[in-house]
C-alpha cells in the first residue's frame, strides 16, 4: 500500500467538535454516528497502523481491531480529551498489544521476539532505485520502528512513549538512535 493520502496533521476545530458530538452519540449506541467517526478518522488510523506494523496485512488487522476496540471502549471516553487524540492513543495500544501477544506466542515455541533481533542488513535496492523513507521505516526492526514512528513521525515525547510501551527511557533512546542510524544507512545506498 502506498502512502498517498492527504496530510492530516490535526483536525480543524469544526471537525473536532463534530467528532465529539458523534462520539457522544456513538457512545449511546448510535452506529451511524460511529460510522461518521470512522469515515473521518479511518485514514489516520490506517496510516498509524501501517507505519507501526510495517506490513499491510498486519496493519489491516490492527486497524480493524482498533475500531472494534473503539466501539467497545467508547464509554470510557469522557470528552475531556479530543476524540482524535483518544482514538490515536487507543490505536497505538492495540498495535502494541498485538506485538506483545505475538512475542508471547513466539516465546512459547522457543523463538525470540524480534525486538531483540540484530540489526538486519537492509535489503538490496534495485539499481537506480533509491529507497524512500517510507519503505526504509517498514524495514526497521520492530522495536526500533515502533519508537521511531511514535517519536519522530507522530511526535510523542519520550515519557509518553515510555508510558505506552513500558520501555525504560534509556532503552527507548537507544532504540531511537538505532532506528535513525539504520535509516541513514538505508537511505544512503
Amino acid at each position, binding site marked *: 500500500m502506498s502512502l498517498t493520502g492527504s496530510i492530516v496533521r490535526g483536525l480543524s476545530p469544526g471537525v473536532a467538535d463534530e467528532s465529539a458530538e458523534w462520539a457522544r452519540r456513538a457512545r*449511546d449506541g448510535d452506529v451511524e454516528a460511529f460510522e461518521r467517526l*470512522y469515515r473521518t478518522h479511518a485514514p489516520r488510523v490506517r496510516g498509524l497502523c501501517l507505519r507501526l506494523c510495517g506490513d499491510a496485512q498486519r496493519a489491516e488487522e490492527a486497524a*480493524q481491531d482498533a475500531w472494534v476496540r473503539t466501539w467497545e471502549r467508547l464509554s470510557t471516553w469522557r470528552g475531556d480529551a479530543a476524540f482524535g487524540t483518544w482514538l490515536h492513543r487507543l490505536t497505538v495500544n492495540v498495535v502494541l498489544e498485538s506485538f506483545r501477544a505475538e512475542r508471547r506466542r513466539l516465546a512459547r515455541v522457543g523463538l525470540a521476539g524480534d525486538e531483540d533481533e540484530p540489526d538486519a542488513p537492509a535489503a538490496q535496492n534495485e539499481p537506480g532505485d533509491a529507497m524512500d523513507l517510507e519503505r526504509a521505516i517498514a524495514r526497521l526492526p520492530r522495536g526500533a520502528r515502533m519508537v521511531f514512528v511514535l517519536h519522530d513521525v507522530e511526535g510523542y515525547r519520550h515519557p509518553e512513549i515510555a508510558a505506552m510501551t513500558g520501555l525504560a527511557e534509556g532503552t527507548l533512546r537507544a532504540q531511537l538512535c538505532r532506528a535513525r542510524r539504520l535509516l541513514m544507512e538505508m537511505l544512503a545506498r
Partner: protein
Amino acid sequence: MTQHLDDQLLSDFLDDGLDASERTRADAHLATCGACASRLALMRSVVTQATTLPRSVDVPPDEWQRIRARIGAREWRGAGTMPWWTRRSALLAAALALVMVSSGVTALLLRPEPPVTTQAPPPVVKGVPATARVAAIEDEYAATAQQLERELAARKHALAPETIAAVERSLRTIDAAIVEAREALARDPGSETLERLLVAGHGQKIELLRRAARLATQS
C-alpha cells in the same frame, strides 16, 4: 576534542537530551569537526523527513463493512452511557424479565424432577430505541451475573463435583444461546421475538446462578 561523537550522542543532541556540560562539549566539537557535523546533518534530515510524512493513507472501500460486521455481534455492549430515561426503562424491563423468566434450566439441573415449562417471555418496553434498550438490559444482567458468579465461586467448595459440573455445563449452554440470540438480533435489530429470547437467556442465567449460590449456602 579529537574523538568523534557517537550516534547515540548525536541522537540525544537532536532531541535536546544532553545536559549542559555534554551540550557544551558537543557544540565545541561540532564547530571544528566536519565529519561529525555532516553526520548530525544527515541524521537531522532523516528526522525532518519523518515529520513531513503524510499521516493518512487510503482506506480499503470495504473496510467499514467488515468492521460493522464485527461490532454487530457486540453492538449491545457498546453503549456504556445511557440517558436516564433509557436506563430507567431498561431497569424496568430487566426487573420484569427476572420475575417472569422461566427457571426451567435450573429446575432441570438442580431438582430431582424436571418440570420444564416455557413461560411467557418478558414484555418489551416500548418507547426507547431497541439498540439502547437491549444494551442497557444486557449491562444490568452482566453486572448481576458477575456478582452472583463471585458469590458462587466463594462457596463452590460446598457443592458436589457433579453439581458443579452440571451448573457449568448449563451455563455454557445458556451463554451459547445468549450469544446466538445477540448475533441474530444484530442482524435483525427490530425483532421483538429475538429481543425477548435474548432477555430470557439472561434471565435463565441469573436464575441458575442464584439457585446454585443458594444451594451452596445451604449445603
